[in-house]
């Protein structure tokens, strides 16, 4: 088995969680209602915890002495392996909700498949994370329904958010050589097989939310191979500032 593929695979999982957690932490103190401040931070905290598990394991697999923090704070954007979807800016509450919803539904399916991984460590992380993400799915789906089937304004905003992010929603179903190697080794999921159940779940929620399923299934890709949107570099500038400015410090 190719350990470089396994390292890449673990980075992809860790970076999704890390980058989305970073976006959610930008909401601190600015949510639409106090309960949502708590919920957003709660989801962010789950994701940070997951990022730490994936990245620690990635560092061990790599065997080059990098720990979770070296991986999180000392890689430039081309070293990041997250989906383009999770690095998109927060926008309004509809955009934050749409991003979360589209990702959560992919995330839960991917983790569910990984609980059967032949890599026991992967299976254990997926099982733990899956319990948290089941709640994330419930929460983000509820909000899509609430905002879609709320007022005229919220409906319009929610539809615009889904339409705007839709081209980033499909990247998680487009396997490359790394994914093929991981699926063959029984470590990672068969990504293409996740598309149908994902689409079915998303369509059901959008229908209940009185929202239209976008027709154009064109998918941007590149994040998982290190080719990102312009947004990621700025996110990293902020997140990595202290480690970059004071490389010898111990925090």
């Amino acid at each position, binding site marked *: 088995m190719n350990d470089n593929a396994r390292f890449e695979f673990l980075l992809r999982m860790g970076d999704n969680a*890390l980058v989305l*957690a*970073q976006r959610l*932490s*930008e909401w*601190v*103190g*600015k*949510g*639409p*209602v*106090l*309960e*949502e*401040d*708590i919920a957003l*931070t*709660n989801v*962010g*905290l789950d994701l*940070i*915890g997951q*990022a*730490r598990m994936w*990245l620690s394991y990635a560092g061990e697999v790599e065997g080059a002495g990098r720990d*979770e*923090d070296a991986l*999180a*704070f000392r890689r430039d954007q081309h070293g990041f392996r997250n989906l383009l979807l999770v690095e998109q800016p927060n926008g*309004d*509450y509809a955009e934050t909700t749409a991003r979360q919803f589209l990702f959560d539904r992919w995330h839960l399916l991917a983790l569910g498949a990984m609980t059967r991984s032949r890599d026991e460590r992967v299976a254990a992380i997926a099982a733990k994370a899956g319990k948290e993400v089941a709640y994330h799915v419930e929460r983000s789906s509820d909000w899509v*329904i*609430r*905002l879609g*089937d*709320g*007022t005229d*304004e*919220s409906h319009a*905003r929610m539809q615009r958010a889904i339409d705007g992010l839709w081209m980033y929603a499909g990247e998680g179903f487009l396997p490359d050589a790394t994914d093929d190697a991981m699926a063959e080794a029984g470590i990672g999921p068969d990504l293409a097989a996740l598309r149908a159940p994902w689409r079915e779940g998303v369509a059901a929620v959008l229908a209940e939310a009185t929202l239209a399923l976008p027709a154009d299934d064109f998918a941007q890709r590149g994040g998982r191979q290190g080719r990102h949107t312009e947004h990621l570099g700025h996110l990293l500038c*902020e*997140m990595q*500032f*202290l*480690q970059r400015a*004071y490389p*010898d*410090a*111990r*925090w």
Partner: protein
Amino acid sequence: MYAQMVDTGLNKVVDASQMSPQEQAFQARIDADVKVEPRDWMPEAYRRTLVRQIQQHAHSEVVGQLPEGNWVTRAPTLKRKAILMAKIQDEAGHGLYLYSAAETLGVSRDDLIDDLHAGKVKYSSIFNYPTLNWADIGAIGWLVDGAAIMNQIPLCRCSYGPYARAMVRICKEESFHQRQGFDIMMAMCRGSADQKAMAQDALDRWWWPSLMMFGPSDAESVHSAQSMRWKIKLLSNDELRQRFVDQTVPQAEYLGLRVPDPALRWNAQSGHYETGPIDWAEFQAVLRGHGPCNRDRIRVRKEAWDDGQWVREAAMAHARKRAERESRAAA
């Protein structure tokens, strides 16, 4: 976080001869340490004062998310980021318990928030100071939460049941916050010269505002005397401040940091530290709105509230639609 200088709306302490029989019975229950509960009769001034105090405290928790939020996106390690997020989440939770405690007194959370945004009520002035380096996050936990705990532990025994019970939960979490703050300070003080300088800079900026958190000396204050009579304030501002100084100075020494007070000295006779004079003109100026961050803190909160208006409306509209559908289905 906590409330400062709460107005009772009275201009002198009410003594027993001026009380109605109902008020006398109320005071007798308080004197006997019986908790007041929401459905119990209470003097209007007691109710209003509690609303002001709990409201200030709740707003402090909510506004207090902002100076820490200023660094949560730049926390230096994943572990520190996770701890800080958990702490901020606790604070939002404290805001919720406290708004709920205030609501038991017949006010609504939305009205209280309107009062905050209209500048009618204060939050703790400490949050009108900026967080400029990472050690500020340590200093907030160590000093600001440390000062808040001094004030809040006695409030666990205050006369109003829902407030006292909220405070028990809050104090448990605050002591974790203070420990995490001190842990950041230790790492900074054991770290590089740059880190040590950040830690000293943070202490230099947060020391005096932390002492001011307890409020001016209240020996002469009618409001404090009445609040103490009602047992919604249990110790004087000066007593609490002295406890804080006595606890904190040795901690600063342990960290190898210099407390920015040339007059600070240990009095072996009294067994307490003596501090130099506090610049109350600065405190009053910050209270009037002239602190470094007063304008930004309220602006950010108002923007968040206004930007969230459509979300709250949508949630209400959806709930109404759902209830209508359910009642139609049941019919």
